[in-house]
């Protein structure tokens, strides 16, 4: 019998090791798996490389993971936001590495990683500093830069509905990077708002087929960054 449901969110992330590459879903706070990130803070794994579009806000979620000095390197497209204080400070002090990647290149690198494609050529960033040192190749008279696929040891994502096979659906723009991140990790860990029986999700509307998912944890009342930040909350408290 296949059952990917794990009862404890703490247990679901317990094998994330020091030095792991971890993809974290979300675009800003939409789709950010706040509870799974906070359990990773409880666990305390160090020297992580985090692949995520942003670097979080306030002192919760990804920003709190960074503030807790667990992150060696960020791979992202937009490492600042209105309420981001943690990353900019560490970055200016040279205490965290940044690999800045155009957003579409980041998405494609994750997609390629998940699809077994080691590298690809893209027009994005040609003639800019972000292409410095990278292979440039011409196809039909146009220049393209070579970019590598990314694979991770773990992906942490949030979804709307899941079943025990790991079939997932998402909510609105909270989907963003999560479906491709599910495909690109050795172990994909999902927090879901709703847990349902197999068959309750119409096969026609499954966004992430269960084969890409390893663990599912039900978090029926997830916290949101903006609410936590507005209440001046920090993690750990």
């Amino acid at each position, binding site marked *: 019998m296949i059952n990917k449901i794990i009862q404890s969110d703490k247990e679901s992330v317990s094998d994330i090791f020091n030095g792991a590459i971890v993809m974290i879903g979300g*675009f*800003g*706070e*939409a*789709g950010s798996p706040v509870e799974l990130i906070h359990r990773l803070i409880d666990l305390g794994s160090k020297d992580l490389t985090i692949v995520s579009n942003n670097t979080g806000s306030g002192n919760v979620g990804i920003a709190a993971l960074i503030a807790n000095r667990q992150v060696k390197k960020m791979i992202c*497209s*937009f*490492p*600042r*936001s*209105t309420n981001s204080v943690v*990353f*900019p400070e560490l*970055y*200016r002090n040279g205490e965290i590495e*940044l690999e*800045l*990647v*155009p*957003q*579409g*290149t*980041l*998405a*494609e690198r*994750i*997609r390629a990683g998940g699809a077994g494609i080691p590298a690809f050529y*893209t*027009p*994005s*960033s*040609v*003639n*800019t*500093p*972000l292409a410095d040192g990278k292979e440039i190749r011409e196809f039909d008279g146009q220049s393209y830069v070579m970019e590598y696929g990314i694979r991770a040891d773990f992906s942490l994502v949030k979804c709307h509905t899941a079943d025990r096979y790991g079939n997932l659906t*998402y*909510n*609105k*723009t*909270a*989907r*963003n*990077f*999560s*479906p*491709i991140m599910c495909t690109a990790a050795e172990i994909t860990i999902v927090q879901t708002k709703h847990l349902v029986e197999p068959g309750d999700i119409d096969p026609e509307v499954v*966004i992430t087929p269960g084969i890409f998912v390893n663990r599912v944890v039900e978090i029926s009342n997830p916290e*949101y960054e*903006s*609410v936590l930040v507005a209440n001046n909350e920090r993690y750990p408290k």
Partner: protein
Amino acid sequence: MNGKLQIGWNRNEMAQKVAQDLPDGSYVNLGIGIPELVADHVPEGIEIIYHTENGLLGMGPVPEKGQEDIELINAGKKYITAITGASYFHHADSFTMIRGGHLDISVLGALQISKEGNLANWSTGKPGAIPAVGGAMDLVAGVKNVWVITQHVTKDDHFKLVNDCTFPLTGKGIVDRIYTNLAMINVTEKGLQVRELAPGISFDYLQKRTEPTLIQ
């Protein structure tokens, strides 16, 4: 506007100029800042579908107070709505739309634009600045028409329309049209060609605030 008297078109009028140029049925990506105002000015009877790169085709207006949904935001992370007939998708699909040439027009802000249509809009390259590129490089590389909407000069009166960009580039030779508070300008093979001057703005006044020689 920093206590300064508005010269030429204001932000809404600039957005209106862009909106009036959008062909009926276009698929359009609006960047953060003044570009966001364009959606408020589309003439009646014209149907435009707005793309936001975080996974929505058919972005609608800002929600009414109390109707905001944390999981429905735009690329600027502001609350939005979805129109009837909208669709959601993941990031790889979203940037397939962008880089695969499926979008018709990208409207972006700018730090500098050169006479050859080079654009710099993601970093001043200053020490201590946090570089953040987002989707700008993908948009200029993949979208058929790139339109820039910006103040004509910086807050301290430096050129934004320059011979060569001094800030790090977003893309080379990719800007097609420029909409500023002073004029509408096309980027042509011969250089920057003035299409329309804002009311009360003379060609000489515009030229003094533009580094490259303009074509009348």
